[in-house]
């Protein structure tokens, strides 16, 4: 009894330490983003001695900075929409119909997800050049489909297979046509799945750097590329980089809020 009580009293230590370690780099990033460059390089301070918003001001006023965010958001949203739209019918087919080689095809899709992006950088660059798509948002959005469509298909298939086939049939018996059934009856049932799939597409596209950088030069340059190339004539602008980092985390943190209840099911590809 006593021993148990003791364990309970100490049980907060490990998670607290863990979270502390996890949050330390993020805290340091936020911390840096409010400091001046002199403070960052010259002294070690746990909280900014002379808090400043200059770093954020630079980002929001300099087109070289904020266009990076706009570009990223454009191709990420494009990609999310394309991926989910393409994955919905595909996942439905995999979940409801048996056809020749369906299981192999389904598995092959997942292996696409495992392929290292570096492998595709060269063929993509060559191919997109040939079609004159280099440095466009749609180029990056389509390229990211390579990873995101399979992922979305897998997640959605898991959620769809959790819906009994009899619901489809009941809807047909009630008189629904397939498109009407799909939009009015079926999609609300897998709304959380669509949300999770969209979230995963969003996140992967948002953090992917290699392909996005290869396919863009100036007009569609993503924020991650801007961040990693910012060594100006006057040296590293630490403070602005830190502020850019903070702003890059925010969209992910925002969308994760909406799918927080389903995220574990998403990581299990909808199969819980």
């Amino acid at each position, binding site marked *: 009894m006593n021993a148990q009580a003791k364990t309970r009293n100490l049980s907060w230590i490990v998670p607290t330490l863990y979270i502390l370690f996890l949050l330390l780099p993020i805290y340091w990033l936020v911390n840096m983003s409010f400091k001046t460059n002199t403070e960052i390089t010259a002294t070690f301070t746990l909280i900014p001695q002379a808090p400043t918003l200059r770093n954020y001001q630079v980002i929001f006023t300099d087109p070289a900075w904020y266009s990076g965010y706009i570009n990223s958001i454009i191709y990420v949203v494009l990609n999310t929409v394309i991926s989910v739209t393409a994955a919905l019918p595909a996942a439905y087919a995999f979940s409801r119909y048996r056809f020749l080689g369906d299981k192999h095809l389904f598995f092959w899709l997942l292996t696409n997800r495992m392929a290292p992006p570096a492998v595709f950088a060269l063929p993509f660059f060559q191919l997109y050049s040939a079609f004159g798509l280099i440095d466009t948002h749609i180029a990056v959005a389509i390229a990211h489909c390579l990873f995101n469509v399979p992922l979305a298909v897998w997640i959605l298939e898991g959620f769809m297979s959790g819906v009994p086939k*009899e619901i489809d049939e009941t809807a047909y*018996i009630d008189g629904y046509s397939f498109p*009407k059934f799909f939009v009015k009856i079926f999609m609300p049932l897998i709304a959380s799945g669509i949300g999770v799939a969209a979230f995963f597409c969003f996140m992967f596209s948002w953090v992917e750097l290699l392909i996005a950088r290869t396919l863009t030069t100036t007009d569609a340059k993503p924020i991650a590329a801007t961040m990693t190339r910012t060594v100006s004539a006057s040296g590293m602008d630490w403070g602005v980089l830190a502020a850019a980092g903070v702003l890059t985390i925010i969209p992910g943190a925002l969308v994760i809020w909406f799918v927080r209840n389903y995220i574990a099911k998403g990581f299990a590809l909808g199969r819980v």
Partner: protein
Amino acid sequence: MLELKDITKAVGGATHIHPTSLVLERGSLNVLLGPTLSGKTTLMRLMAGLDKPTTGSVWFDGKDVTGLRVQDRSVAMVYQQFINYPALTVYENIASPMRVKGADTAAIDRAVKKAAELLKLTPYLDRTPLNLSGGQQQRTALARAIVKNASLVLLDEPLANLDYKLREELREELPKIFSESGAIFVYATTEPSEALLLGGNTATLSEGRITQFGRTIDVYRRPSDLLTARTFADPPLNTIALEKRGDGFAIGGKPVLPVPGHLKHMADGPMTIAFHPHHLAPAGRDDSAALTVRTAISEIAGSESFVHVEFEGNRWVMLTPGILDIEPDSEITVHVDTRHLMAFDAAGRAIGTAG
């Protein structure tokens, strides 16, 4: 009138339905009776048009509807699982078939309210199905089937997942509710007692074949073959291979039972004699057909007792009212009600059943 003309259904290499023909009249109640995997659901899906028969055709009111989309048919179906649209309220669930047809709001409201009243769902119309009990969920599905006002109503073991009391209640209500509409009513069940309670017509199914179709009571009392008799018996039918010799049935030359009046016309020879468990009783008033059997186990189910006995290597069940506490592995004398004996030949065809 629904007609199935020589339909078969094969999936992969396996035959699920052997050539089957069936005519169901308008306004009739039809029971599909058979154990699990006997093809009840497959047959219903073929009737509904959810599946296409491999060969043969389905006719409705003189029109060939084989291959007609299920959306274009006048069908309602209720599954054993409680199938509703979880994202919609009970009200919208019931209204769904009318909404699709584009009926006006007032008509929908009237029909939904009426169906909800009938199935005691009025207090739950604003809830979503998953917040209801199983019985209420299934009643929602039934209400949707009523509102559809279809000419063919298919109920696939609709009460199997409900508790006993609710099942009794709904079983009584269902035929009444649907008989008003003049629809063809098809009800699948695994329970012979349910078929008898529903009445109407019964088709007994066994391994993808309809073994017999006719008035429920006729199929029960005068099965055309042993398979039908077995399908229509719960607890299992008692059988024994005997030889008819004039006025008596014998086993190994030893007479065991007298030949009852209704079986006297049969020719002498070997045959299978069958009777229902409730036609076996502890010996008493009449010992014209008494047998000495060895008891195995006895189960007491409230007001009835099931006594498993063995006679000449045949395992029988005796279903008798009251609580009968019998020592296992003892010898008792039982009485066979010979008026209800059924006789089948070597091929399983009925050669003599109750009059």
